[in-house]
């Protein structure tokens, strides 16, 4: 009950002194972003703020435990109480930030301090001008991340689904789209490595594969991989790095047609299709269930260490192992921590994000949660890099070098929307219209 009165008091205080807090927070923000406030000032202010509200997708027990067991004590040491708010979808936090912004809550006045996000959700906040500012390179632990634009490996830190990050979000974790196979049900020789081999396998074993339904981002990513592999110009992901305005709807339609035709042709061979309409799971938990129960023999998702963690939690079948698919087009990206423009505790949020990108936090996260590092190992001391390498939960069936050799970048966020709309129209609703028309219509809807 003690916390109740605290909340009440906090609500009253916030209501009464909103305008005052606003001004101070604004001054702090400007001072930090132009470099006149040093890191010690940030830490001191964070102690005064006392709390930090981190909003993140709470569907992963292991991550929840890690937040409470590792991050909370680390923040405690900084004099800040971590309030981990577990949400069912990252979009809930985005909606909350925007709703508060629209009802006039500015700096220091909202309720979300930091959000774990990437792609579309970041693009939305950026478009609506709802981000704190370009803070990433000002944090002490920015040294763990590659910011040299001449190094092509820095691209993942500057571009989030093709959208310029501008330092308004900090890389926190890396991911790669990896497929797992249940080796108890599929012989080693039958495991596909290209989309054509997958089709050949399904012709012999119909119904033993499905992918998560777009607009879920895991479904979108599978569709993108298929489109890369069927790119008529043969240059894979390269053509999909520019925005819709730069490419144009007609050119995009030409580039994605072969991939979508392939997916349409694959439909009758997918789970429960029996030559008709297949069943697409709604999210990764549903797909994990199908994979565990042997309804499908493969499980594709962002999960570089999904097999190791799936075995540790009993959500994967015992003989699960990774394999390289599709060859050369395994999409790799990063996910980030962003600070909204109306964060109530901006200094505490900065301290939190800085801690999250420390070597200690990254090693512990990789080891305990199986979430790949978001920092770049070549920027670390040999000792730290070795600790990070040692923390890896490991792979079954493939090695890191093979995984590294087959990566591809994400698709530009503006194209993702159009491709998603096209998939829904052409494949889910079975539209007879030519793909060029569907793409043109989708592009037009987006520009409205």
């Amino acid at each position, binding site marked *: *009950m003690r916390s*109740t009165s605290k*909340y*009440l008091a*906090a*609500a*009253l205080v*916030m*209501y009464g002194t*909103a305008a005052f807090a606003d001004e101070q927070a604004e001054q702090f923000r400007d001072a930090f972003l132009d470099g006149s406030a040093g890191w010690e000032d940030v830490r001191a202010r964070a102690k005064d703020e006392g709390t930090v*509200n981190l*909003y993140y997708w*709470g*569907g992963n*027990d*292991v991550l*929840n*435990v890690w937040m*409470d*067991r590792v991050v909370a004590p680390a923040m405690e040491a900084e004099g800040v109480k971590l*309030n981990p*708010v*577990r*949400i*069912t979808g990252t979009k*809930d*936090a985005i909606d*909350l930030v925007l*709703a*508060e912004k629209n*009802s*006039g*809550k500015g700096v220091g006045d909202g*309720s979300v301090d930091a959000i774990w996000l990437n792609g579309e959700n970041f693009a939305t906040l950026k478009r609506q001008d709802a981000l704190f500012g370009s803070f990433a390179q000002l944090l002490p632990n920015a040294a763990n991340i590659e910011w040299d634009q001449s190094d092509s490996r820095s691209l993942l830190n500057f571009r989030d689904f093709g959208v310029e990050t501008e330092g308004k979000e900090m890389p926190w974790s890396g991911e790669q789209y990896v497929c797992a196979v249940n080796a108890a049900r599929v012989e080693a020789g039958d495991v596909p490595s290209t989309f054509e081999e997958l089709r050949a396998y399904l012709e012999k074993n119909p119904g033993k594969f499905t992918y998560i339904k777009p607009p879920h981002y895991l479904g979108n990513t599978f569709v993108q991989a298929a489109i890369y592999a069927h790119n008529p110009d043969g240059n894979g992901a390269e053509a999909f790095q520019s925005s819709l305005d730069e490419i144009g709807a007609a050119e995009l339609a030409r580039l994605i047609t072969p991939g979508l035709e392939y997916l349409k042709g694959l439909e009758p061979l997918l789970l429960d299709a029996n030559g008709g309409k297949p069943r697409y*799971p*709604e*999210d*990764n*938990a*549903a797909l*994990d*269930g199908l994979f*565990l*129960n*042997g*309804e499908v023999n493969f499980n594709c998702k962002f999960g570089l260490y999904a097999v190791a963690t799936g075995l*540790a*939690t*009993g*959500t994967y*079948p*015992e003989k699960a192992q990774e394999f390289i698919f599709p060859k050369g087009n395994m999409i790799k990206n990063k996910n980030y921590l962003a600070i909204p423009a109306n964060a109530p505790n901006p200094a505490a949020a900065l301290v939190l994000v800085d801690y999250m990108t420390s070597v200690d936090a990254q090693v512990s996260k990789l080891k*305990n949660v199986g979430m790949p590092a978001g920092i770049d190992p070549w920027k670390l001391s040999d000792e730290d890099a070795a600790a990070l390498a040692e923390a890896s939960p490991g792979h079954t069936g493939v090695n890191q070098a093979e995984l590294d050799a087959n990566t591809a970048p994400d698709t530009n966020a503006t194209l993702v929307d159009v491709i998603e709309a096209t998939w829904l129209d052409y494949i889910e609703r079975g539209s007879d219209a030519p793909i060029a028309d569907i793409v043109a219509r989708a592009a037009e809807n987006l520009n409205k």
Partner: protein
Amino acid sequence: MAFKNVQSLSERLSPFQKFYLIVIAGFILGPFIPLLIQSFAFRWAWPDLLPSTWWLEQRDKSMLPLAWDYVFSPYSRVWEATVNTVFIGSVVTVICLAICLPAARVLARERFRGKSAFEFFLSLPLIVPEAAIGIALLMIFIRLGLAGSYVGIIIAHLIPTIPYMVRMLTAVYQGLGRDFEEQAMILGANRRQILWRVTLPMLLPGVVAGALFTFLVSTNIFLLTFFLGQGQIVTLPTLLFSKISGGTLDASAAGITLIVTLPGIILLILSERFIKEEAFGKGFGN
């Protein structure tokens, strides 16, 4: 007493009736069986009838608390959610009673212009979808600084509970009549004595039933709590939703589901006992 009743009941029933009773019990209890098994499982895959690996076998190997260990660990937030749920439910019930008792008295005993329209108006919140109320309230509460606070959630919970409570208490007042109170007045009791010694004891069974019902409704409200709590205030329904929205039920989700059903079951048992024996006994027996 209760046991004797059951015995005599089972003697009176025909085999056909007994069969029906068992089927109904099966429908009610059936879903709990897989839930209970799942809550002790580590890996339970089709086509195994029982889990191939149990939680206890993996307990020492896993660095993460599994199944019931997770449910009862602070990480699952079950305790925090239970405290919040019970606290919000209790406050809502008390406020709801304070508002509805006088209102029900007037509605049951007085006649005034537009009374039936007013009664209809009172049940409107039950007709308007919760999502519509929730979003509108959220916009208002954000401005007032009440979003994400206990006060905000309690106010929101009053909206769907007041109509029920008013209806129940109105019926209770109507059943009571003025006779007893007038009798007491003739015998020289003052207003206070009448209220404490006559009216309230006789109302008690209805009040207890209404209060338990309100509490139960409040502890089950998901959408309004979710909107107005903004994820900052966890209650059992919001905790459960965030756990099972993925569509699969793992061991810890099954455990939390079982925990969530507990307040309802406890209250049901309490209300059965209290309303039948205590309240009715005191109100009408002597």
